[in-house]
């Protein structure tokens, strides 16, 4: 058990803040090299963030990024890498959109309709992730490979289903194609914000609830303990009677179920249909946000908001004459440097801790010279 110490908190913050500062520096160099002013860029971003509409849009984006990050983080805690969040949420959004938009649903009370949509999305996401989980526990296939492949299969499955002969609606003359729009009873209303043309997604509360559940299950239940234990050391978990196969299956199913929710804030709060312009790629953003937020429920929330702000300020940059691509550069550098920064901070912490132990035991030798390679390197407990 680690004591709560101010230095531990400082060290915990050092990595993400350091990475952020480093990313800003890299962007400053890129901007200077291409003849743009850093201050104009910062000015444009700050102005953008203060505009109510941009702020609301950022939070809306963050809601989805956060859900995706939690889906990824559940796998990460088990040392499972669910790259398939992307395919899972797209397939789930498409099928639940078809269900929610179906005519027979219109007679049902709103609460029931929305609940059914949410449950359907979770089931689809879990089922799609379950395919990878089954392959892993029965055939030993790496979930990294199978989920990447399942992403591609999901893409083709969605295209196959998104056809007027199947789940899509006939729209003569249109260059878009989508499921039948969800009528008002099946939608989740937004929260109006003064000065903003877009509402805050009502399902932001769903994301918050999922975040709370993630924290609770992982740190307050036996299941969460077993999950973390399996992630830390599989052999130790087996030795203490945990069925690793069962844990792999369960955590992948949970990860998939949360992934299924990713598309819902957009679907039920704004799009009201799954069509060709439904935003793809949120699953990959979720990986970045989970890395940046260190799998921590609060950390990931902050990372998601940062990501959302960056994404939604790109237009303002474009308008100010700064290439919007700078946002992509910044995000890429943040992810890369945050991984390096965490490793540096970890080594520093191990070294100082060992030095303290050495001091306490009366030895003056610097143990860092031995190159510590112990297994005690998971610091991000919730």
């Amino acid at each position, binding site marked *: 058990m680690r004591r709560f110490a101010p230095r531990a908190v400082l060290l915990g913050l050092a990595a993400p803040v350091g990475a952020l500062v480093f990313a800003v520096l890299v962007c400053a160099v890129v901007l200077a090299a291409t003849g743009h002013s850093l201050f104009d860029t910062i000015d444009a971003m700050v102005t953008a963030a203060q505009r109510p*509409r*941009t702020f609301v*849009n950022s939070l*809306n*984006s963050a809601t989805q990024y956060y859900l995706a990050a939690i889906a990824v983080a559940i796998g*990460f805690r088990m*040392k499972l*890498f669910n*790259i398939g969040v992307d395919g899972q949420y*797209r397939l789930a959004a498409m099928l639940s959109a078809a269900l929610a938009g179906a005519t027979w649903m219109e007679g049902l009370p709103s609460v029931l309709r929305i609940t059914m949509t949410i449950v359907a999305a979770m089931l689809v996401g879990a089922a799609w992730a379950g395919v990878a989980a089954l392959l892993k526990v029965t055939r030993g296939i790496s979930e*990294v490979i199978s989920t990447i492949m399942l992403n591609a299969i999901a*893409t*083709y499955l969605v*295209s196959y289903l*998104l056809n007027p002969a199947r789940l899509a609606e006939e729209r*003569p*003359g*249109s*260059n*878009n*194609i989508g499921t039948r729009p969800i009528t008002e009873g099946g939608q989740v209303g937004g929260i109006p914000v003064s000065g903003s*043309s*877009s509402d805050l997604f009502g399902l932001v509360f769903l994301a918050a609830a999922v975040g709370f559940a993630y924290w609770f299950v992982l740190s307050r239940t036996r299941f969460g303990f077993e999950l973390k234990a399996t992630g830390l050391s599989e052999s130790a978990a087996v030795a203490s009677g945990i069925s690793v196969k069962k844990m792999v299956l369960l955590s992948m199913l949970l990860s998939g179920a949360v992934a299924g929710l990713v598309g819902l804030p*957009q679907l039920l709060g*704004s*799009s009201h249909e799954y*069509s*060709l*312009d*439904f*935003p*793809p*790629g949120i699953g*990959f953003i979720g*990986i*970045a946000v989970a*890395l940046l937020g260190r799998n921590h429920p609060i950390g990931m929330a902050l990372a998601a908001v940062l990501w959302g702000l960056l*994404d*939604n300020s*790109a*237009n*303002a940059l*474009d*308008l100010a*004459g700064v*290439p*919007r*691509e700078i*946002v*992509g*550069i910044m*995000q*890429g550098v943040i*992810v*890369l440097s945050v*991984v390096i920064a965490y*490793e540096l901070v970890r080594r520093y912490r191990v070294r100082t801790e060992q030095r303290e132990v050495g001091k306490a035991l009366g030895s003056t030798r610097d143990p860092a010279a031995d190159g510590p390679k112990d*297994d005690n*390197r*998971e610091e991000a407990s919730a």
Partner: protein
Amino acid sequence: MRRMRGTRLAAAALALGLGLAACGGSSDSGDAGSGSTGDGAQLKVGLAYDIGGRGDQSFNDSAARGIDRAKQEFGLDIKELEAGAGESEAIKEDRLRQLAEGGYTTVIAVGYAYATSLAKVAPDYTDVQFALVDSEDATGDNIANIVFAEEQGSFLVGVAAALKSTTDKVGFIGGVNTPLIQKFEVGFTAGVKQVKPDAEVQVKYLTEPPDFTGFNDPAKGETAANGMFDAGVDIVYAAAGGSGNGVFKAAKAKGKLGIGVDSDQYNLPGLAEVKDVILTSMIKKVDVGVYDFISSVKDGEFAKGVKVYDLEQGGVDYATSGGKVDDIKAQLDDFKKQIVDGTIKVPAQK
């Protein structure tokens, strides 16, 4: 170190993904809005491009040509913004709003991807005149829809392909399987069957939405074209944006022919090496649509609603550069006339 492996892999994969996404856009907005020495009463025009923006050698560039011509003639104050890969509807909407709020009284949304967002934005800015290219889905008192009869132009190049094919097998390669590109396919197939009812048309789409890389992946185009050529096809129509380059490369290597799209691709400097295999191109004059729209606004004659640029209007056509269709030009022009006067009705949907 096992614990860190997943993390590192994730970081590497992400960096790669983000890097690729960033490569997608080549920004060239440096000179926008600064070049003119107007009289102060300049028309302020805002453009929202689709992914790729100015410099994509394809659809967006065609719109850019239209705006450049208009700028030269009328001296406009232009602001150009472009879309990012995989962005949300809200970001598209925000882009249009920023232009409208920035005092741009004429706003052109390039690409059907803006249909939903424009439908939401337009009613809030009644003093702004909007144009939407390639879509009729957003309508309103201040929206003009610029759409093209791609199936008619495709029909003509289909006729050309059928007349020129010696194996009676021709191919169609679509960039991304969307309703818009299906219009090209349907028109092309109808054109082929009009001349040779027994000819075979092989169809292949490079990617399925939401994967839109099929419009900008020459390697995929080359692989698909090689497959068709190996199966006996001798002419391939590439309605695939930048991926068409790969199709022409394959045709050149195998001594076959390709048909271009959107621009008169025989004359594109970027395709000079393979231009001798370009039989013809289906020209879609987005530039004319954009220019006409600005011109109408300039003259105070904004007209809401759909304006179809078809064969009759000269909005779509086949290209004669290179002289490969000179011998069948009379037949092509005859079909063109029949389409214009309505004798032949070209289907637009499967």
